[in-house]
């Protein structure tokens, strides 16, 4: 393992992508550490996280469950303040960035309001963020986003009438309605069945290609991470840090053929061994 005893990650030189040095990072995290207080005990859940996400890229955070990848995403979103280090999104604090609607969030559960239909749900956050927006404008924008996620025709459906995949599409449309330049997604397809999951992956890829948003995706699916992202950050446990950053060299745009590309297999093998290793180093 390329981690020194002190816990400082040593990223192998060969794995540093050339691009990160050139383009200015859209999201930047420097020396992030997060402590949680559990029953009076201080516990470090994230340590020494350095992350630079280039503008317009799609990167994944992958790691064993409970490793802190969701916590890292919440730090990037400004929902959890880091104990140490600083995060910037477009050069400002993430909390301020979220208020300026630079950041859109999607969680594992769609968390739609059951008393509102699809279009009302899609417009809800935009109307909350911008009290002065006319209802018709917000709905027009929500309708456009529902169309983008492939839900045109389902605008009037209630959440209880939608499948899990469709609900998650509404949640994505709700985030997109804010027109954020950054989309942070916490295992957005984790609760879906395998087929729906693949379909949603293609849908996300399509959205990314069409909108050019910077997307950070937390996932525990190796295939999903490789298929979707340009870079995969592998996280290890106890306390969590980024143990390796893998550049995915698959050709863009990604298609069905990407799965059979030799580069896919290589990345898959590498990620598997990294994840198995980090899983076995379970803290006591």
């Amino acid at each position, binding site marked *: 393992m390329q981690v020194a005893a002190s816990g400082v990650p040593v990223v192998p030189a060969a794995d540093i992508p050339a691009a990160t040095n050139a383009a200015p990072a859209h999201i930047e995290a420097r020396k992030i550490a997060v402590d949680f207080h559990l029953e009076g005990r201080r516990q470090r859940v994230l340590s020494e996280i350095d992350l630079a996400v280039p503008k317009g890229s799609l990167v994944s955070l992958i790691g064993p469950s409970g490793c802190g990848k969701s916590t890292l995403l919440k730090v990037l979103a400004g929902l959890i303040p880091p104990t140490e280090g600083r995060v910037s999104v477009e050069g400002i604090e993430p909390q301020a960035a979220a208020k300026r609607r630079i950041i859109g969030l999607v969680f594992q559960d769609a968390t739609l309001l059951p*008393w509102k239909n699809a279009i009302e749900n899609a417009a809800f956050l935009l109307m909350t963020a911008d009290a002065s927006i006319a209802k018709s404008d917000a709905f027009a924008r929500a309708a456009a986003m529902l169309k983008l996620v492939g839900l045109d025709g389902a605008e009037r459906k209630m959440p209880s009438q939608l499948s899990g995949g469709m609900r998650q599409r509404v949640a994505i449309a709700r985030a997109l309605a804010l027109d954020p330049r950054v989309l942070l997604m916490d295992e957005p397809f984790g609760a879906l069945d395998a087929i729906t999951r693949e379909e949603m992956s293609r849908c996300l890829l399509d959205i990314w290609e069409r909108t050019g948003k910077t997307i950070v995706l937390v996932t525990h699916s190796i295939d999903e991470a490789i298929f979707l992202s340009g870079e995969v950050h592998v996280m290890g446990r106890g306390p969590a840090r980024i143990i390796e950053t893998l550049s995915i060299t698959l050709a863009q745009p990604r298609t069905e053929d990407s799965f059979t590309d030799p580069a896919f297999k290589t990345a898959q093998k590498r990620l598997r061994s990294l994840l198995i290793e980090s899983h076995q180093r379970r803290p006591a």
Partner: protein
Amino acid sequence: MSQIVPDAAASARPPAARRPVPDMVLALGLMAAVILVWELAIRLFNVSPFVLPAPTAVIRSLIASRARLAGAAQATAIEVVLGFVFASITGITVALVIVRFERFGRALYPLIVLFQNVPKVALAPIFILWFGFDLAPKILLIVVIAFFPVAIDMLAGLQSVEPSFVALMQSVGAGQGKILLRVRIPHSLPHLMAGLKVAITFSVIGAIVGEFAGASQGLGYVIQFASTQLDTPLIFAALVVVSVLGLAFYYVVELAERLLVPWAPKYEIRQRAA
């Protein structure tokens, strides 16, 4: 796009060979059977009507005292409705205060639970002492009996909004007040309706207990008066009226639930099937 198989599965099911008997018919049948057994047992064992009147005797008493029972039912109904309304307002207010003013709420909550453990029936004579024999003590008794389920259920609803959704609201700058108004309160409505259904049955009990403790009208008063006269059939007739009244009130609240929160999780399965 995402039309996954449920339709195919549904159509594959064989057509129902015979329709099951509706629940309502079963319930009425069972009730008729119990009444029949009751009637037969009274006649067979020659039970005195002072001890246990036969259903036919109860019906005769119902008809004979119909004007009196109707007047008493009206008096009780007014107490129930007013008491229920005040109990609901109290319960909702308590829940909102606990959620909105978190620190004060944490101090208030144990006090309310402690109060809930006081036997409310024992308070009836005190309320009579304070407020006399009119409407006020009965309404107060109903409020102290029935506000608790409203407060507890409403509170559970207010607090069970998903934390990730609250985070989403906060991330775009929404304050606690806005989250309460636009998310927590609507989210709590199905829970509130469940609390109101418990509260309405408690309200009927509260009214009867209040009338027992001291009243000049109402069904509770009729029951007590009849017992001093050893008019057991009239006691049973009044009990029948109380039950019907309680049932009617319950279904009014249930109807309100269907109209106000058709999106409640309990209706979801039916909606999906439709």
